[in-house]
């Protein structure tokens, strides 16, 4: 929440109201239109009311000047969701041909305070489309994510930046970046989603033309991560995603999945099997996501009864909150056998 001053009389207020400033005396402030008795009246702090009265005043005259930049900044700091102020500010920047690097620096500061406000990111997008200098943004976004690692707007903005400029240099560090995010928090669904976007949904870049190698790399990566944190829906979704998008059979990873369906974590470890890293010591087994996966493998291979056995165990024991869903799977499975 931005800082608010509670009253215009407070002696520690730094700036006088716009109504008290002689350099603004040529502007006619326009009060908020409140004809009827509104059921939800607003209580404004005097500062916000003053600033928005003057904003309405300059919008009416169409003024686009340096002092308008100051005024819109005041409003934005008090209410970052005031999208009219953002819009008018952008138009003023264009009209003045104001220095964009200065504006970006201000945005750097505001983004930290107003992470969850869409307008901050949209304004940034508009500025980047003018500056056409995306490289420093990657670092900024990474810093921003530190405060809120799953911020939907921030990840969306990063995706937009990469896709819009589509520059090899921008992409080159991306795999490392998303890997670092996953290392930081293996359960960050936004990071896994972003990885899928980078690897499989943003075209094929120079060193990635050997798709078979890429697939092997990704399978190894996700299996290692499942090995270290088995009960992680993001990783299991990612595994399915790799196979689905490359039209590979789920049975390809059957040996791996089976390691997570047993109850003991005493997997035979004398032989290091890179293809099938076992659950880490102390993992909670069996892993429901693995049971679900194995059941899907059985189903796809036509082994319906084995699938229904596993679904039964989910309904009765391992995922009882979704009992009705698992019973649905059993019914559908049995139906397909009868055909």
């Amino acid at each position, binding site marked *: *929440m931005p800082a*608010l001053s*509670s009253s215009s009389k407070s002696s520690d207020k730094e700036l006088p109201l716009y109504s008290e400033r002689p350099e603004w005396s040529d502007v006619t402030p326009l009060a*908020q*239109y*409140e*004809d*009827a*008795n*509104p*059921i*939800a*009246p*607003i*209580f*404004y*702090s005097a500062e*916000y009311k003053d600033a928005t009265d003057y904003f*309405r005043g300059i919008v009416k005259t169409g003024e686009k000047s340096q002092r308008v930049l100051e005024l819109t900044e005041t409003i934005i700091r*008090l*209410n970052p*969701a*005031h*999208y*009219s102020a*953002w*819009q008018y500010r952008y138009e003023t920047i264009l009209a003045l041909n104001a220095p964009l690097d200065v504006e970006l620096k201000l945005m750097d500061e505001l983004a930290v305070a107003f992470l969850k406000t*869409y*307008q901050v990111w*949209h304004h940034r997008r508009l500025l980047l489309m003018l500056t056409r200098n995306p490289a420093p943004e990657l670092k900024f976004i990474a810093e921003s994510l530190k405060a809120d690692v*799953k911020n*939907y707007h921030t*990840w*969306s903005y990063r*995706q937009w930046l990469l*896709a819009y400029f589509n520059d090899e240099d921008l992409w080159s560090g991306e795999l490392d970046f998303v890997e670092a995010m996953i290392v930081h928090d293996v*359960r*960050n*669904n*936004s990071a896994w*989603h*972003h990885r*899928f976007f980078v690897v*499989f*949904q943003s075209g094929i870049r120079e060193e990635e033309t050997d798709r078979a190698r890429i697939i092997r790399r990704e399978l190894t990566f996700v299996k290692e991560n499942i090995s270290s944190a088995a009960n*992680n*829906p*993001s990783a299991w*979704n*990612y595994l*399915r*995603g790799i196979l*689905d*998008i490359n039209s590979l059979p789920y049975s390809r990873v059957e040996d791996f999945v089976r390691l997570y369906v047993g109850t003991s974590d005493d997997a035979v470890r004398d032989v290091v099997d890179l293809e099938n890293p076992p659950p880490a010591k102390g993992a909670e087994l069996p892993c429901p996501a693995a049971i679900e996966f194995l059941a899907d493998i059985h189903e796809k291979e036509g082994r319906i009864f084995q699938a229904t056995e596993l679904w039964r165990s989910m309904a009765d024991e391992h995922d009882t*909150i*979704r*009992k*009705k*869903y698992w019973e*649905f799977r059993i019914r559908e499975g049995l139906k397909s056998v009868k055909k």
Partner: protein
Amino acid sequence: MTTGSSQLAIPLHVSYIKSLGDNKDDLAYHLTAHLRMNAIYWGLTALCIMRHKEALPRDETIEFVMSCWDDEAGAFGAHPDHDAHLHSTLSAIQILLMHDALDRIDIPRVVKFILSLHQPSGVFAGDSFGEIDTRFLYCAVSALSLLGQLHLLDGEAKDRTVNYIVRCRNFDGGFGNVIGAESHAAQAALAIFDRLDVIDEETLGWWLCERQLPNGGLNGRPEKLEDVCYSFWVLSAMAILDKIPWIDADKLTAFILSAQDLEAGGIADRPGDMADVFHTLFGVAGLSLLGYPGLQDLDPVYCMPADLIEKMGLRKPWNALKRKTA
């Protein structure tokens, strides 16, 4: 502070909503001016579901809605003098419909505004600032439908819109709010278009029922916290897909009830947090879909009273749990 219960404290929540307009001392109040129209829609709908529509005065409400008319744009802003926005325009239409006052709206102008926000890609922007999001797509489609003007989005325009949604589908079966974005709960426009054929209902139903956490609450994406509002966002989608039975209804009901503030009224995002009108509506809406006794039926496609939608001839296929008797 929320203190939970095993019952929905209807009279308390009714007076909570009534008192929202009295909050003149709340400094943070002015910061939510951009939500004012939506807040009234949330409050009024919650009251309708709790069978206490009369708690907010009809004439005052209508006058406030009309005071938000942005005559330049031909639509509604969130508050007097705020620029028109698709979301507030939808809320205005919904409020006026619930008060049987749609005749106050200049429908052709509003339709023009909505259609002007349609992008070549098929999605809708929320306002002239340009934010795009499938949630705005929903607002546009819902608004046009409620105004009886959905036929204006036909042929190529309709296909383009449906197609945008399809392109938002992700590898995990869920849908993001723009193409490429992470799957997030909250998508219902396809039902209004009668185009559920484009989705894999079972996979989507699975992704949605996976939102239920051991404590009974629902989250919006994997590994995030439960939140009462998802009791509506997820549940409404499941009602449309006729898959509410895949959720443990008793646990979800208990979760919603535990997030009530039994002193000041209202419902919070989760037990222990502060109540607000947004979560109050979506908690009550979720309970209605779960068949909680004593509530009115809610249409999950439009998030409005079901009997009103039915009367307007707009009901689409959906299934909520049967209403329990007290």
